[in-house]
């Protein structure tokens, strides 16, 4: 029941916002924040009830939902799902607090804005805990609608264009996945007992050709969602037109469904096809890593820059997943969590900067550190975590991805390492141009962070530093689930290679 409760709490919050008087925006914000905090508390209870030493799917609920299709309302979490649920429930209160002073387009109210965010949180929790492919699909597609409205109705700039582009890109991917879902129904219904439960699908006999087609359908949805080069072009537009809070929810939480889906559904259900596709996916992931970083360097819009850094980071995550070693896959899963935190911090601080300055262009900033030292400091920490500085959480995960990938695909790992240098470049150059240097006159009015903003950012910063030094607690949750997935896929780690040096020979001849 706890998972259903966790999923329903924010959804109920969204409905409650509908009856809050339209004039009272403050009450709406308080209601939304309370529901998100209640969800956070619920997720901590979930963590407490999850038996880490036992691993596997736990707290399972299963009810027949659509009998004709064999669709179950089946929820359950393993370590991977749990990690991402925690990411969702931690980030949602943060973004709700960060949205407190957002300026909405004329005619729009906070009620709807916050309700869509809460709705998105509820759907995301459902997606991360669905154990039935059709249920997963339904919730996965349903998340499009809240984001569509969040960008289109409450965003800035060319928001309509960005919202429609987001919707169509993701819908095309999702519909191709629907074709695969229907394919699964066809295969599992042949003997008269259709089922979409992951436990039944794993044992399904699929011909090699069909497996590839089905895998491609799933991957289309996930590669667009994640986003993987060359399907990433919707992300910068969407991120630049969204409010900071929306951008965080979209990039940090919802895009994770793509990588999460690759691991649980793509690799989990179609291991043969996944191996078949690995060369292509690894190549695209490496391109994403490098190309995303290169494009980030060239951006002038803060939000687009952060969006492109995410393209690069998602490349790392996908690289780690498809290298299919226990280290790289665990690292990729950990990376999903860390990227969520660091990107959230970056987007939110950038959002504050943009709101205060009235421009998102890097060229319009200079010397902000003189007037807003706290903001500058936190921006630096968030930036450094994005470039994976040792001591901050993303470093651990990026290192695990690289180390794990190297054992199987050394070339891919070597090329990707270049992105670490590029990351230093895009983060530090951005920092230098905006924060250091002489204070521009029109920047003098930028106020430093107020207590509310600090409070909303603090949890993310604390977690990044904390997990940077003590990653083990979270890795203990992740590792068993990753190992279980890899065992099911049947790919072991390559045997360790120790370099052979020629044994030193006794010198002779010197008489």
């Amino acid at each position, binding site marked *: 029941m706890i998972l259903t409760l966790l999923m329903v709490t924010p959804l109920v919050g969204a409905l409650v916002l509908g009856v809050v008087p339209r004039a009272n925006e403050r009450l709406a914000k308080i209601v939304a924040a309370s529901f998100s905090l209640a969800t956070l508390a619920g997720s901590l209870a979930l963590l407490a009830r999850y038996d880490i030493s036992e691993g596997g799917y736990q707290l399972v609920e299963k009810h*027949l*939902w*659509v*009998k*004709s*299709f064999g669709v179950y309302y089946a929820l359950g979490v393993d370590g991977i799902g749990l990690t991402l649920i925690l990411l969702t429930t931690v980030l949602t209160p943060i973004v709700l607090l960060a949205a407190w002073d957002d300026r909405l387009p*004329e*005619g*729009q109210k906070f009620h709807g804005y916050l309700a869509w965010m809460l709705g998105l949180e509820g759907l995301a929790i459902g997606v991360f805990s669905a154990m039935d492919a059709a249920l997963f*699909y*339904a*919730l996965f*597609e*349903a998340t*499009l*609608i809240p984001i*569509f*409205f969040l960008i*289109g*109705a409450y965003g800035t700039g060319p*928001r*309509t264009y960005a*919202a*429609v582009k987001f*919707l*169509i890109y993701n*819908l*095309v991917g999702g*519909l*191709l996945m*629907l*074709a695969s*879902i*229907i*394919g699964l*129904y*066809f295969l599992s*219904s042949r003997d*008269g*007992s*259709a089922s979409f439960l992951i436990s039944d699908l794993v044992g399904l006999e699929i011909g090699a050709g069909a497996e590839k*087609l089905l895998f491609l359908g799933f991957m289309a949805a996930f590669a667009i969602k994640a986003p993987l080069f060359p399907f990433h072009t919707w992300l910068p537009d969407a991120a630049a037109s969204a409010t900071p809070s929306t951008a965080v929810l979209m990039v940090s939480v919802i895009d994770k469904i793509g990588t999460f889906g690759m691991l649980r559904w793509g690799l989990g259900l179609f291991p043969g096809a996944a191996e078949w596709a690995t060369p292509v996916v690894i190549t695209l992931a490496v391109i994403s890593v490098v190309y995303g970083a290169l494009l980030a360097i060239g951006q002038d819009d803060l939000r687009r820059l952060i969006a492109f850094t995410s393209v690069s980071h998602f490349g790392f995550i996908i690289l780690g997943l498809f290298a299919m070693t226990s280290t790289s896959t665990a690292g990729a899963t950990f990376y999903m969590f860390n990227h969520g935190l660091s990107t959230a911090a970056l987007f939110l601080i950038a959002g504050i900067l943009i709101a205060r300055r009235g421009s998102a262009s890097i060229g319009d900033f200079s010397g902000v550190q003189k007037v807003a030292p706290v903001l500058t400091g936190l921006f630096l920490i968030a930036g450094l975590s994005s470039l994976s500085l040792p001591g901050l959480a993303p470093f651990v995960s990026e290192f695990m991805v690289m180390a794990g990938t190297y054992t199987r695909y050394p070339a891919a790992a070597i090329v990707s390492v270049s992105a670490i240098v590029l990351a230093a470049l895009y983060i530090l150059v951005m920092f230098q141009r905006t924060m250091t240097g002489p204070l521009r006159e029109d920047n003098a009015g930028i106020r430093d962070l107020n207590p509310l903003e600090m409070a909303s950012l603090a949890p993310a910063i604390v977690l990044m530093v904390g997990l940077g030094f003590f990653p083990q607690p979270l890795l203990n949750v992740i590792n068993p689930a990753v190992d279980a997935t890899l065992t099911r896929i049947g790919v072991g780690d390559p045997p360790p290679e120790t370099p052979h040096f020629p044994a030193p020979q006794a010198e002779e001849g010197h008489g």
Partner: protein
Amino acid sequence: MTPIQAPVVEYALIAPLLIVSAGAVIGTLVEAFVSRQRRFGVQAVVAFVTVLATLADSVYVYVHLDRLPGGRGQISTEGALAVDGPGVLTWAMLSVFALLSFALFAERRLEGGLSAFTGRAADAPGSPGEAEARTAGLEHAEIFPLAMFALLGMMVFATANDLLTLFVALEVLSLPLYVICGLARRRRLLSQEAALKYFLLGAFSSAFFAYGIALAYGYAGGVLLADIDRAVAANAEGRPLLLAAVGLMSVGLLFKIGAVPFHAWTPDVYQGAPTPVTAFMAAGTKAAAVVALMRVLFVAFGGASLDWRPLILAVSVVTMLLGSLVAIAQTDVKRMLGYSSVAHAGFLLVGIAGAFAAAGRISSVSAVLFYLAVYGVASIGAFAVVTLVRDSSGQGGGEANYLARWAGLGQKAPILAGAFALFLLSFAGIPLTSGFIGKMAVFSTALSGGFWPLVVVAVLASAVAAYFYARVIVLMFFTEPVGEGPDIAVPSLLTTVVIGAAAIVTLGLGLVPGPALEFAQHAGLFVR
């Protein structure tokens, strides 16, 4: 001299048809004998009572189908009608559509106490007579009996078991519709043009259909669907005759469904007809014609499915793509919904092309029935919303069908716009709405029938369709109103209930589709 044998008529089985015809006849008499002031109200009551009784009796017959000696379904009235699970379920579905649409017919608050139909159809548009009829408060109450005759035609169409009954039903359903399409109170020229266009093209397609019947008779030597099935199974002489018969009959049926290339009437008629009539046609005609098409193809020509399945497949691909693509360019909300209806005809044909039936799995018939039900209800709901979005009284107060006028509706009337958005999302097949389950069901039968590339084309066409639905949502919610924006008419309880019920069904069948889907599956197959 041998005595003439009285035909055997299973009155209990076909009672729903008898009730509708009785209601229609009573309506005609009401027209003659009730005073003008009270006529509209009396007609509405007669129509509601009739439709409710039909619905109740259809359900009764459906529930008792199991008790029939020959299993679920029976050929009745000397072979003219096939009373079986899918047929009776269609009767019930059509009654529900009629109930909802008649509520829109009876709505009189939107036009200041008058219905959406012209006061005196004989007056030329813009003539002094028209103004006179308006001041006198004249109304055409015949729309109710006419619509009931159309309903009768639809119900017979869905259960006709021989080609002649099929043809008669086609005409009974079409002729009243031709008339009521031309009765709009506003934009009468457009309405009359629509009626004429519908009539001419409809007559043309009926001719094709009749020619197809003649050829089928020539091939099989009988008009019963079972006769044709036997001839096909026996591989009788004259294959070209068979192919021509299938082709020509399909033309007639595909015309009624609005499939490309026989769709040209759809946008014009949807736009010109009075909106309540459009709602009735969009839901009812499509449902009846699709079921009739399935019955003809599956029962009569089931043995020749290798011949017609490629045809249906090709038509479905063209229909989906053309309907979705052309809808993007529409600027009138009713035309947009018209092309959307064309696209949905394509999605329905995907399920028919699958022609799949197996125990324990979703069959084409039940998938298509489910799709028809959810599409019909959402359509009626959408057109009901269209009747409420109007120009301000200074601009005449008619329906604001021009899409650009819908800008900012979400801010002005969030609930109404929300309901419309829900219907559009259901059309687009977004999960957690009923349209998604419908799409999944029909696509799954196409795949089970062995056409996986068709499923891929269908999902891509769905993406295109989603684009133009999304555009309307963008317009309603993300765009500032132009000037004052449209007026939102305050409807009476009738329209409110229709929109509310349609929204509840659309969301409800999306969240809890299980029982309805099982119900559709329980309908089983056509009786032969």
